[in-house]
């Protein structure tokens, strides 16, 4: 019982890290690319854009967040079900809508609010199921300890 509760909390924290890192990474990349301006599709244009990209702090911050996203995604999938993590990650769509209303003062249609509501109910339904329904298939160590028959 304790183990299952610990697993659920660990998974929810991991999914939260996935959602936060993915959304922050996307927003920072978008902001960084806006600072650089439209990229010209030519050899000179691409190399100029590359130089601007690697010297832009906002883009580096975005890359750090996206690396955090990939790391947390891989880590959570090492113990939790894919069919649990994947829909829970969609919670990011709801978070982005709330952020757009609060910080960007965007007006959101009732249809979009209904979509956010469906995502939240869907994530709650998935969140109530067991985070792991399969056994881990971790490979056995190749070297056996001394004294253990092969």
């Amino acid at each position: 019982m304790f183990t299952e509760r610990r697993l659920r909390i660990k998974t929810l924290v991991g999914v939260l890290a996935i959602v936060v890192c993915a959304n922050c990474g996307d927003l920072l990349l978008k902001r960084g690319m806006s600072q650089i301006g439209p990229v010209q599709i030519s050899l000179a244009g691409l190399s100029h854009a590359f130089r601007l990209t690697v010297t832009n702090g906002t883009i580096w911050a975005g890359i750090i967040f996206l690396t955090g996203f990939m790391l947390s995604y891989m880590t959570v999938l090492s113990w939790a079900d894919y069919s649990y993590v994947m829909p829970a990650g969609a919670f990011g769509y709801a978070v982005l809508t709330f952020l757009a209303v609060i910080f960007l003062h965007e007006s959101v249609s009732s249809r979009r609010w209904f979509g956010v509501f469906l995502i939240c109910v869907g994530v709650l339904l998935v969140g109530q199921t067991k985070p792991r329904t399969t056994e881990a298939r971790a490979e056995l160590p190749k070297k056996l300890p001394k004294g253990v028959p092969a």
Partner: protein
Amino acid sequence: MIKVALLLGVLVFGSTGGEIAITYGMKATGEPEHLTPRALLKFLGRAFRNGWFWAGVPLMALSFYSLLVLLSWEPISLVIPASALSYVVGTFGAKYVLGEDVTLARWAGVVLVCLGVALVTFG
């Protein structure tokens, strides 16, 4: 229209195929012993030596490229709701490829999330 449907198929099956391969690889890798930087680095080292991880990466890259091409052909209000189908395809993959126990509650949640993503994008 056939071209769009085909590329949408590549997008959906590429992303779910890639994620399922990575999940398979991560399950074989096993979870990190602790959530410390040292243990996470060891975990990453084990993951990068797993073939399933490297099978998943090009599939996800293919799906990302398909998304970019689709976005250049069709409006985002069509592409993103259609790509939400990957939640349903992914759940089938989780059940039949990874052998996960997908209960009725989980199916209902996945369908609601899929509809919700479509509505948020259309809205």
